[in-house]
């Protein structure tokens, strides 16, 4: 029977991009359905109103929202995102939220693929070894360096993961004077400070421009194409093959399946709000963990009473984020010469420093040997309205009038901050999951996702340990107002889990090729497959795994 396309990809972010790129290059016809608009480089401006104040790149929450459950005493506090400050959308546009990533790129390390067998079970956590090893993924990590474009410099350290290429294809981005200060402090403390790999081109390459060092990167779209978003790095090229079509503003509401359980078509609403269908030989879902789970759960069929690919009942379970801690320290300009201040004031160059020394914590003060994580040092986000708004709330009430003005002067003009971001595993647990809300529906009449954000106590323990270590570095550098803390609140921009992969159909949703155990023509290629998400931002792993799955699909077609 003739199909509209060989492959239908739902979602165009880091999980969908590599499939579209590889399959279309291999000569297969691909359609990519993306619920958001197709913005191009010349739509991205350094505009706080567009990026952060108004809903330009995410849906109106009144029309399409989520419901969240957070810990409250013994129970759970339930809030609609349209009536709270939560927003679980991370960027609905061609290229997905990879348009807005900072591109702090870390590989997982070999032990992440076998945490359970290395450290044993953890009470209250659903740990599982991966059905593949680091060696299976390494060639694809390497491919991402070259195809998406990663800049950096390999530095020898005790947790350096094995690499097939000697160094990164692009040199590190220009660094800020603070970077050198971090290096010096770390040297004195016996810590290895590593230039952070970034999915940002440090020179023109791959038919894209270099970074322009304007200082506004994470959270905003890239106007030069230097940032390795799925759109700039992969989809634009996929379209050029003539084999890939992108349907923007096409919201997939359901995946339809026949009595044998095989997918027959995808139901979506186009730009005009008209219901449409498209079919293909293979379907790939990559809508980011929460929406992927929701789509599968909403896609019941004769053979899939509990939702598509959900015979295990595990679709939506083991939702994860990047766990961890945070902190900051301030460098008051009064301590520096006029010339130094001039250099420190610059907004363009990156700090780009990361510490991996605590990837495994082997410290009697902490307890038993345990999986730790990664520390990143970054600039405070420069968006001025966000920064100033934080100054309204004082210790004794609201601040206004001349006191607010003097505070803003000192805050903005007399110094600058370094921010600590500490990443540990968000341990998968039974109180972190996605299901369908029994009442709330979106504008298409489909139930919305309801996510519970339960965290494991270990997150706080490790997060605090890492953040405190980073705080010591800032103190050594001479920073004032150093604070570090851990949090159980999820960073909703880094989301994984909900469709765990594994060898056993009873304990996993996908097999090791990220093909659904229950559905022959379904693959899931966003971060949903991960049994644990590593202790660093995991976008690189999503890209790499999607390239790996693309090879499996090509072999099959």
């Amino acid at each position, binding site marked *: 029977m003739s199909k509209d396309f060989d492959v239908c990809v739902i979602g165009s972010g880091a999980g969908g991009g590599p499939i579209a790129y590889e399959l279309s290059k291999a000569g297969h016809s691909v359609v990519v359905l993306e619920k958001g608009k197709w*913005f191009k480089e*010349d*739509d991205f*401006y*350094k*505009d*706080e*109103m*567009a990026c952060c*104040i*108004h809903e*330009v790149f995410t849906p109106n929450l009144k029309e399409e929202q989520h419901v969240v459950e957070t810990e409250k005493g013994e129970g759970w506090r339930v809030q609609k995102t349209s009536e709270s400050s939560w927003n679980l959308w991370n960027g609905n546009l061609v290229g997905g939220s990879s348009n807005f990533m900072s591109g702090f790129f870390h590989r997982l390390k070999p032990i992440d693929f076998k945490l359970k067998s290395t450290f044993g079970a953890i009470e209250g956590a659903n740990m599982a070894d991966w059905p593949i090893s680091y060696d299976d993924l390494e060639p694809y990590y390497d491919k991402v360096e070259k195809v998406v474009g990663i800049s950096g410099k390999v530095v020898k350290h005790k947790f350096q993961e094995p690499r097939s290429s000697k160094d990164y294809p692009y040199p590190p981005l220009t660094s800020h004077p603070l970077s050198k200060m971090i290096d010096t402090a770390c040297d004195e403390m016996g810590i290895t400070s590593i230039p952070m790999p970034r999915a940002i081109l440090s020179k023109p390459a791959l038919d894209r421009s270099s970074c*322009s060092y*304007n*200082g*506004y990167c994470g959270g*905003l779209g890239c*106007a030069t194409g230097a940032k390795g978003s799925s759109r700039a790095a992969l989809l634009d090229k996929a379209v050029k093959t003539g084999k890939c079509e992108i349907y923007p503003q096409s919201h997939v509401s359901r995946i339809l399946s026949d009595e044998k359980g095989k997918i027959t078509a995808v139901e979506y609403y186009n730009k005009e709000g008209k219901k449409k269908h498209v079919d293909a030989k293979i379907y790939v879902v990559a809508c980011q963990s929460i929406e992927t789970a929701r789509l599968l759960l909403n896609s019941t069929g004769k053979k899939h009473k509990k939702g598509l690919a959900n015979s295990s009942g595990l679709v939506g379970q083991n939702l994860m984020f990047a766990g961890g801690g945070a902190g900051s320290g301030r460098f008051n300009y009064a301590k520096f010469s006029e010339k130094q201040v001039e250099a420190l*004031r*610059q*907004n363009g160059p990156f700090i780009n420093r990361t510490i991996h020394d605590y990837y495994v914590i082997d410290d009697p003060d902490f307890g038993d040997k345990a999986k730790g994580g990664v520390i990143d040092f970054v600039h405070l986000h*420069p968006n*001025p*309205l966000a920064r*100033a*708004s934080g100054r*309204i*709330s004082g210790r004794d*009430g*609201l601040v*206004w*009038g*001349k006191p*607010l*003005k003097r505070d*803003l*002067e000192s805050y*903005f*003009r007399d110094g600058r901050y370094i921010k600590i971001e500490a990443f540990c595993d968000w341990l998968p647990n039974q109180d972190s999951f996605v299901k369908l809300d029994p009442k709330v529906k979106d504008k298409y009449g489909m139930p919305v996702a309801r996510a519970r954000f339960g965290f494991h106590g270990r997150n706080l323990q490790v997060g605090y340990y890492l953040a405190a270590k980073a705080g010591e570095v800032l103190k050594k550098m001479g920073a004032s107002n150093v604070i570090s803390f851990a949090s159980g609140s999820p960073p909703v921009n880094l989301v994984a889990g909900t469709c765990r992969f594994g060898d056993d159909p009873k304990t996993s949703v996908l097999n090791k090729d990220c093909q659904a155990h229950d559905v022959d023509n379904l693959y899931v290629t966003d971060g949903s497959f991960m049994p644990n998400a590593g202790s660093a931002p995991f976008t690189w792993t999503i890209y790499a795994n999607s390239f790996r799955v693309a090879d499996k699909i090509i072999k099959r077609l």
Partner: protein
Amino acid sequence: MKRREFLLLTAGFALSNTLPLQAKKLPNVVIEPNKIIGLSSDQWQLMDAVLNHLFPSEANAPGAKDVYATAWLHNALAMPKTEQSHRDFMRDGLMLLEKLANKTHQKSFIQLSEAQRESTLRTLEQDREGRAWLRETLRYILEALLTDPIYGGNSESIGWKWLKHQPGFPLPVVGKRYYEL
């Protein structure tokens, strides 16, 4: 913006002298200010006084008036996507303040001395709704102060220059403002 729409934007607006030229760059919305949030000209004068108190103008540091905060707020509430409940919220808070001034001083807020204005606002802050309203009002002032000049506040980057803030690039241009994307 077409001239007719601009006239509508300013028609009946008692504070038209505080409406900046930048208002011409504001979006193509046809509005009648007095109907938007049910604020009369007098009430807009009152709002203007509140904004100037919360962020006073100084010789070397711009205030609400220098970044056209009143016109900013007016236009923000007039945007078609702004919800009516939010417009009501901004009006109700103002009325709460005025009621408080009447009760405490038997005067309009606008007739109060600076010290009386401060104490009335501090009393309002003790009320949960009042505090939320003050926070929102302050946020609007900061929006006018620190967002891109193309939106009508932060004239000639006065806010950015004051705080030695280095904006990014490229900056938004006509045709690519947030409501045009």
